[in-house]
């Protein structure tokens, strides 16, 4: 097992390198000259050719491509992503706190999504075909067909404006967590509870359930067995959900003015602040790889069959 963990972790390193290279190339694809952008962003009134050349040297643009990449990579490893074009502040001083805020939102939402999916999945599987199952699935169907920002707007309109219970935006009090987390939970749990449900239904048809019933085991004990077996399937799905949710809080963050990565990235896109965009892509892609590596290891721990193949 330790061998598997070692090999799987080693596999992440070349992947991270490739990702960093692609992120760097992405920046080079930009149709605009970074030197000109910096000057524009700093509000220099008259941009002369000498000024551009000077800025290019200051940015290290006159070096060969590979040297620039390696330089950039080493400074990234020290969390030095350069300075923002717009504010001139170090990128990490803006990205770091935003990352923590997004992480906070993601972790809370993931916990809520898992709890809700398992809860709803069990309830639906146990009442399969009856009105409760049908109405939960019907509601989930409508809610997942809805863009999450529309759902968020409706919830804000009802709970914040009509009832005035919760704050509309920001991240100040405990209450400001409720709406963003519930919107994410509703959008994702609506997808994931079906997996728990169908895994449980699949197991319900297995012989061991029949055997247990024939032996007169109480229904509650059978349900616990069922759950344990069904959750194996669900764990791998939930592991996949974490990076997806981490990456897609963008819309929710912008709607609720949550001071996270999503807001920062959209703001930087609109102001063409390349260093922040680049660092954002790099940090999230790296986080994605790390989470994926962990989830593969967790899956292998739970399910020994996975350890043999696929590596």
């Amino acid at each position: 097992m330790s061998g598997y963990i070692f090999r799987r972790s080693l596999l992440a390193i070349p992947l991270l390198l490739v990702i960093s290279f692609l992120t760097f190339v992405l920046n080079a694809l930009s149709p605009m000259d970074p030197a000109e952008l910096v000057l524009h962003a700093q509000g220099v009134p008259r941009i002369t050719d000498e000024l551009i050349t000077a800025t290019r040297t200051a940015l290290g643009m006159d070096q060969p491509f590979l040297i620039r990449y390696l330089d950039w990579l080493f400074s990234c490893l020290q969390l030095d992503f350069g300075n923002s074009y717009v504010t001139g502040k170090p990128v990490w001083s803006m990205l770091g706190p935003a990352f923590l805020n997004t992480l906070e939102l993601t972790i809370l939402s993931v916990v809520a999504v898992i709890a809700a999916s398992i809860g709803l999945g069990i309830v639906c599987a146990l009442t399969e075909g009856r009105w409760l199952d049908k109405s939960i699935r019907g509601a989930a169907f409508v809610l997942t067909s809805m863009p999450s920002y529309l759902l968020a707007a409706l919830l804000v309109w009802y709970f914040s404006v009509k009832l005035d219970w919760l704050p509309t935006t920001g991240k100040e009090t405990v209450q400001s967590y409720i709406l963003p987390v519930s919107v994410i939970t509703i959008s994702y749990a609506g997808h994931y509870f079906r997996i728990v449900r169908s895994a449980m239904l699949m197991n319900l048809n297995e012989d061991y359930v029949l055997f247990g019933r024939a032996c007169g085991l109480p229904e509650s004990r059978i349900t616990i067995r069922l759950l344990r077996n069904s959750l194996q399937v669900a764990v791998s799905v939930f592991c996949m959900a974490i990076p997806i949710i981490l990456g897609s809080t963008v819309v929710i963050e912008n709607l609720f003015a949550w001071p996270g990565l999503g807001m920062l990235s959209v703001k930087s896109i609109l102001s063409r602040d390349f260093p922040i965009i680049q660092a954002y892509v790099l940090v999230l892609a790296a986080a994605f790889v790390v989470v994926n590596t962990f989830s593969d290891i967790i899956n292998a721990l739970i399910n020994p069959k996975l350890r043999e193949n696929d590596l």
Partner: protein
Amino acid sequence: MKRIGSLLQDRLALLSLFIITSTLLAGIFAPWIAPNDPEEVHMELRFASASWEYLLGNDHLGRCVLSRLIYGIRPSVLGVLAVLAISVGIGTAIGFIAGYFKGKLDALLMRICDIMLSFPGYVMTLGIIGILGVGLQHILLAFVLMKWSWFARIIRTSVMQYADAEYVKFSKTLGIGSLRIIWKHIVPVTVPVIAVTSSSAFSSMVLQLSGYSFLGLGVQAPHAEWGMMLNEAREVMFSRPELLLAPGITTILFVSAVHFFTDALQVALDPKLGSSGRKKQRKGRFQTANLQGSEVA
């Protein structure tokens, strides 16, 4: 053909198909169907409620909501459909090459796919928009770049299942060309997978695109797009919540039609579910295929 027949017997599937095709047609023939010019501003008609000339009322600039909805189909639905076709095309080509010929080429192609898949879709899309600039075409480009690898992986897996089948081996022994084998023996059995995968990706892409437009990264004013209409409506949400209704309900209706259709397609095309009625029920309606990699907008 029998399977498609059973699909047509399913009334809900038929209704969904009707909604989808009429939306597509309305989008294609927008200039003939839309009652008014979608970009014509009438400041005196701001927030006017429904009238005979403007069936769904007017928005904050007095533009016709119905015409904007109809013109919005073009970027929101037709744009996504075109992108879907391109990425499914690329994914199918690569999936077939990798799955059928295997070997080193397969390993190489799949490593490339792994790398593409290791970028979270949302982040990569934002990165591409960030570098190339705001605009619908950049979002669509990002979609193609991100999605082909996912299709390639799924299609490769399903091709592989059949590439080693006895009848394929038999044809190979007879000396039949690879292209002919692929066309005659492998394409027909993988079509269901491709259909279901692309149909389920369609709905999530429509939602994602409207999400980006909602953030102001996609279609730029004054052009109409569903997500942008929702964003414009949101700004006056507290005083005029009814403006959210038209684009909101349209999006929900279209996306759920695609969801329903995907489920029906899956039931109709899955040979394993074909005969036994009980299993068919169990598989149920509210199930959507391929949750892997699906992202919610």
